């Protein structure tokens, strides 16, 4: 009996302990997570905590001083570059380790190792894209550059110095919740991190959708509805700028410009649409337009906002540089920032750098494909997926052609007649193997003048960016820059023929012939992801860039601006004026009020009174935004279905639609093809979409009132946790803006960093913040402390120190790293 009692109680105790020490499905190990000695309680950063005392670390060559300011920004003062990058790695790991590693797992298609089955499709996609493979080769090629190799290794050593001393109780809380451990960092992982950026900014394509439109409507319609240059544009390089170079020979347009096989098959992979909306703004005003007589530069890159924040602020000071700015966790150096003499910023170039080729295989083994009149061998690699919760790993075979990997595998078995297996190969600039992108930032961090800026840009590959620049020698400049394929006109607008050598990418635009402008007569430079140039530029870059409204607004305000100050540029970053409404709302209202019953509608009256600003409390903005979305849907979804699974297409641009509304009111596209015996007119669809908008707003938000329908409430900006952990993000942030607004804050995207730098002969003055905080720890007061200020459109003055001995009331303390 005693024995039984012992056995029962022993088994109960041991069993309970065992169960609580193991994750159960998605539930983390509760004993480990809840106990206060190791679990989540340990991540609660103490409000009493002083900066830690001095650190003794193996890996620094000399003593390093880190000054922390009141926003928890580290100012690193090192006696050599190695130590600066080592310290940067250490500090970023301390504040952002989980986030850094998460990006690398995503880019290399390994998320399912830590989160299980639900990330498998995403992983398969990333693996097929081949980012991990490319990252390895980029590092192999890049490390022949000694500086590049040293910087990456110093940074990795710093990250690893932090990882090495981590115990379970100090792990970032996400590791505890999801239940895994950080791996060692390496230069390869930094490249993976950059691959992630290439994917976010360059990883979309409309080719398949455009081919579908082409096969359904023919070339004339496509040319009409999807033109290569919009009717209203304000390009980055001002119209009339001379091209100071002799262009190289552009490949001739081949007789056949698209794939010849049927394109109507199902695709196994859904490549995201080209999304130039993930845009950004930057500009610089020259001395003649500024109050100080020297340039002022502004930049706000728009990305999907997440917590921990995308950016990390830092100052790095060594004998070769003293630079401050926004850094990317996982990468050494400053990406957007300034030093004593210069400032720079970036926005994305929306050029077409991802193309698809239809591939005809010899047989189902896919070992050979038809190219230039002969069978050519594919290469093959097997991707292995270790999936959490699965005992056996999964395998996926990826074939590659000389174009690139087969990403689409069409369901060719459904296409019995043809009996030729068809696949789609991808050519993508992100897979270019020489990639010393980080060297561009390395040199920008140390730049003293315009020439240094030009030299730095020559190192940059992808994702192509509009690099804006200003110096205290009163130079301003902007350069859409990166490796840009040399294409024939419209090359890659549709899926191309993978067997035709004329369809290959045939070289690159010489880097010194990338569009650029220095000190233009208008006194400012700017970009908002619009077309890089007008059609006089001798090379074809792409047919679809971001809609031009932000650019138009920025340029017309800068045009008028005199005696600009930091505050005038800050206010421009927060400009909520709706250029599209100015253009089209009067036209739409006129159509609507032809019927007098509409004018009594309170929604109509709200629109009539609206000041055309997407301010937080405007009801007009809510109705207008909803209305044009609805209108576009009603006009085009019947003919160009976006969500059609078999044959998805894309809508003509909004600009093209407004041209149609104004100039071609009887166009056949206004008719709803699903109503057989009825011919809808422009008037019908305008009225119908207006009513539908009011109905859907009422349904979702209640009856119209200034509270229920306030723009910020309907738009409802959310900044979610990067790993989608509920409760770890911030929801319903009150602010205005919108997709085509200079203040491009939407439901999930927005200015991920806002910076304004006033250059000076002596010492620059700079302002900036991002929607989040320096710490990646969800339990830190510095996790999201800048969000409220960001939502209000305010900026923090940035503390840019001359030396470690600078005095400031904003300095909280200094930590030394001492050689062990």
């Amino acid at each position, binding site marked *: 009996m*005693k*024995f039984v*009692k*012992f056995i029962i*109680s*022993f088994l*109960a*105790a*041991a069993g*309970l*302990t065992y169960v*609580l*020490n193991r994750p159960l499905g*998605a539930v983390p190990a*509760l*004993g*480990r997570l*809840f*106990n*206060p*000695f*190791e*679990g*989540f*309680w*340990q*991540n*609660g*950063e*103490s*409000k*009493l905590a002083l900066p830690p005392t001095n650190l003794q670390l193996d890996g620094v060559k000399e003593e390093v001083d880190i000054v922390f300011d009141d926003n928890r920004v580290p100012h690193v003062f090192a006696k050599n570059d190695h130590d600066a990058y080592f310290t940067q790695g250490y500090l970023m790991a301390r504040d952002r380790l989980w986030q850094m590693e998460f990006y690398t797992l995503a880019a290399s298609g390994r998320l399912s190792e830590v989160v299980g089955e639900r990330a498998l499709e995403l992983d398969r996609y990333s693996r097929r894209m081949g980012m991990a493979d490319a990252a390895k080769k980029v590092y192999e090629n890049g490390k022949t550059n000694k500086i590049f190799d040293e910087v990456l290794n110093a940074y990795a050593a710093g990250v690893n110095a932090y990882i090495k001393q981590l115990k*379970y109780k100090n792990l970032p*809380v996400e590791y505890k*919740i999801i239940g895994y451990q950080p791996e060692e960092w390496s230069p390869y992982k930094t490249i993976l991190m950059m691959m992630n950026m290439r994917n976010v900014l360059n990883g979309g394509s409309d080719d398949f959708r455009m081919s579908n439109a082409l096969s359904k409507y023919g070339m004339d319609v496509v040319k009409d509805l999807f033109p290569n240059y919009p009717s209203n544009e304000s390009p980055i390089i001002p119209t009339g700028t001379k091209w100071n170079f002799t262009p190289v020979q552009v490949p001739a347009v081949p007789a056949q410009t698209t794939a010849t096989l049927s394109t109507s098959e199902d695709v196994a992979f859904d490549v995201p649409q080209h999304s130039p909306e993930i845009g950004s703004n930057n500009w610089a005003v020259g001395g003649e337009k500024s109050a100080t007589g020297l340039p002022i530069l502004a930049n706000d890159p728009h990305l999907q906002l997440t917590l921990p924040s995308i950016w990390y602020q830092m100052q790095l000071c060594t004998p070769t540089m003293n630079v401050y700015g926004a850094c990317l966790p996982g990468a050494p150096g400053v990406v957007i920032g300034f030093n004593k003499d210069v400032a720079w910023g970036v926005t994305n170039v929306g050029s077409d750098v991802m193309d698809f080729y239809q591939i005809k295989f010899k047989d189902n083994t896919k070992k050979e494909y038809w190219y230039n009149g002969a069978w050519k061998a594919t290469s093959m690699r097997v991707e292995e997926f270790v999936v959490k919760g699965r005992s056996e790993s999964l395998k996926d075979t990826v074939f590659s052609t000389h174009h690139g990997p087969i990403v689409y595998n069409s369901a060719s078995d459904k296409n019995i007649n043809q009996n030729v297996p068809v696949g789609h190969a991808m050519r993508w600039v992100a897979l270019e193997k020489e990639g010393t992108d980080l060297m561009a930032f390395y040199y920008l961090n140390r730049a003293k003048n315009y020439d240094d800026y030009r030299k730095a840009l020559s190192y940059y590959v992808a994702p192509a960016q509009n690099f804006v620049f200003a110096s205290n020698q009163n130079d301003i400049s902007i350069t859409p820059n990166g490796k840009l394929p040399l294409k024939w006109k419209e090359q890659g607008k549709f899926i191309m023929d993978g067997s035709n050598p004329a369809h290959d990418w045939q070289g690159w635009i010489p880097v010194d012939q990338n569009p650029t402008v220095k000190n233009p007569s208008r006194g400012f430079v700017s970009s908002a992801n619009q077309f890089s140039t007008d059609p006089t530029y001798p090379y074809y870059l792409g047919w679809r860039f971001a809609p031009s409204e932000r650019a138009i607004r920025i340029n017309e305000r800068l045009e008028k601006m005199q005696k600009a100050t930091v505050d005038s540029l800050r206010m421009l970053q927060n400009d909520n004026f709706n250029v599209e409404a100015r253009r089209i709302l009067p036209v739409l209202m006129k159509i609507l009020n032809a019927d007098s019953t509409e004018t009594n509608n309170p929604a109509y009256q709200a629109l009539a009174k609206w000041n055309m600003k997407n301010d937080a409390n405007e009801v007009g903005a809510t109705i207008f935004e909803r209305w044009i979305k609805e209108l576009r849907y009603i006009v085009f979804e019947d003919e160009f279905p976006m969500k059609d699974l078999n044959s998805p297409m894309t809508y003509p641009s909004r600009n093209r639609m407004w041209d149609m509304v104004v100039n071609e009111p009887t166009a056949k596209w206004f008719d709803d093809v699903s109503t057989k015996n009825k011919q809808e007119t422009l008037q019908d669809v305008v009225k119908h979409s207006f009513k539908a908008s009011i109905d859907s707003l009422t349904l979702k938000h209640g009856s119209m009132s200034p509270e229920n329908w306030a723009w910020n409430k309907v738009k409802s900006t959310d900044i979610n946790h990067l790993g989608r*952990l*509920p*409760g*770890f993000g911030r929801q319903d942030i009150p602010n205005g803006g919108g997709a085509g607004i200079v203040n491009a804050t939407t439901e999930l995207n927005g200015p991920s960093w806002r910076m304004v730098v006033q250059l000076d002969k002596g010492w620059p003055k700079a302002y900036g913040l991002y929607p989040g905080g320096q710490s990646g720890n*969800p*339990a*830190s*007061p510095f*996790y999201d402390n800048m969000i409220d200020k960001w939502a209000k459109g305010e900026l923090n003055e940035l503390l840019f120190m001359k030396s470690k001995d600078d005095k400031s009331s904003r300095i909280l303390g200094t930590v030394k790293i001492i050689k062990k």
Partner: protein
Amino acid sequence: MTYIIILIVSAVAQYFLPWWVIAPIAFAICAWKSKTAFGAYAAAAGAIATLWVGYAFYLNFNNDGIMLHKIAGLFSENIKFLKILPETPTFFVIMAIIGSQVAGLSAMAGYYFRQFFK
């Protein structure tokens, strides 16, 4: 007395060793000290509950409850009924139950182990 010993030994041990060390500690100390099964259970469960709640209270206070609030948000998104319970007490109770049951059951096992050899 058993209660105090378990509390102190566990506090020290958990600084160096994983959380489940409370199980062998409760087992050993109650095998040595306890007079009844219930006494063993109560002393160990009470000691760990006190220790965990006390330490967590200290950490939570210093952090203004930010961490607890985030964890509560995470759990209640998946287990909806948690939303209707008061956040802070609920999570302290969950923690106390986890710790005290592991310690209490181990203590009983320790007590019976000793009885078995008597």
